[in-house]
């Protein structure tokens, strides 16, 4: 599977490493070159410096042939916009994005985006742990 991951923070890098180990073709994107330090030397995928909201960079990252696009930058709105570009402009089959704000997540889920809110998920997990 060809996967483009936008945002090489802790979550983005971790996901890139996991997928890379399973021999998927991974490209990570970040606007800060320092973020790529999170990728180990044995990482076989591509690391690309640039803004994931820029069509040219996305094309360079191979979005046109990608099977999946993941948006996990620090900005909810960046993730939302990038995910919509991937889904509606490049017709990537599987698009997932992170939206911290639960209300914004609900709205964009309604609008057809596959979005996860770490806030809701983690709060739910804590509650379950308390109750167990």
């Amino acid at each position, binding site marked *: 599977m060809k996967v483009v991951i936008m945002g090489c923070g802790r979550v983005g890098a971790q996901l890139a490493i996991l997928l890379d180990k399973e021999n998927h073709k991974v490209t990570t994107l970040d606007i800060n070159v320092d973020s790529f330090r999170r990728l180990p030397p044995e990482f076989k995928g591509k690391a690309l410096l640039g803004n994931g*909201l*820029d*069509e040219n960079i996305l094309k360079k990252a191979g979005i046109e042939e990608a099977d999946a696009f993941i948006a996990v930058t620090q*900005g*909810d*709105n*960046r993730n*939302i*916009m990038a995910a*919509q*570009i991937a889904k*509606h*402009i490049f017709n990537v089959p599987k698009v997932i994005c992170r939206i911290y*704000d639960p*209300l*914004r997540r609900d*709205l964009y889920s*309604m*609008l057809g985006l596959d979005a996860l809110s770490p806030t809701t998920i983690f709060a739910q997990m804590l509650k379950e742990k308390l109750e167990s």
Partner: protein
Amino acid sequence: MYIIIVGGGRLGYYLARTLLDEKHEVLIIEKDAATVQTITSEMGSISIKGDGCETAVLAEAGTNRADIFISVTGEDEDNLVACQVAKYKFNVPRTIARVRNPKHEIIFKKLGIDVTVSSTAIILEYIKHEVPTNPLTHLLSIEEKGVEIVEIKIQPDSKTVGTAIKDITLPPESILALIIHRDSKPSVPTPATILQAEDQIIAVTSPDTEDLLRTALTGS
């Protein structure tokens, strides 16, 4: 009309000023408390502090009764999300977004934003108009009808100078609306009208056929 502006920077500030002068009800949503205070002390209580992308803030702003929602922050993604929340959550009839990267204009329109304004694109179009080698200028585009109004200049060395309009094959969906001659006199083109050097032709066309129209009228 009730107009909500997201972003109290210079653009939002002067927009609000002008709209207030035209007797509209205006509200600015701005993240920075100091900016809100400046606006309030100069224009009265027409500003609230908050993130224009948040549903709760937009609810407090009374977005449900807004006629126009304008997002003019410095970040394209924030403007997109603010307008989408206004449109899909609060059913605002008209949303307008400022776009920094002119390439985002198409994306924004595809994602449901009614109007996009890109100062880069506007200045670019203006420059194109001033460059003599570029005979076609966009004057207006009517998005929902897929129609645009363009201006085409006939260069003195154009092959079509001296040709009658009836002898030119225009692409479908293109209509010549007006000719402004070198002496500034406008006239409505008829089949017998003969193209002259430095004529400016105002035509209605579609984005897909504008290149064909340019070729037909300029012969190159």
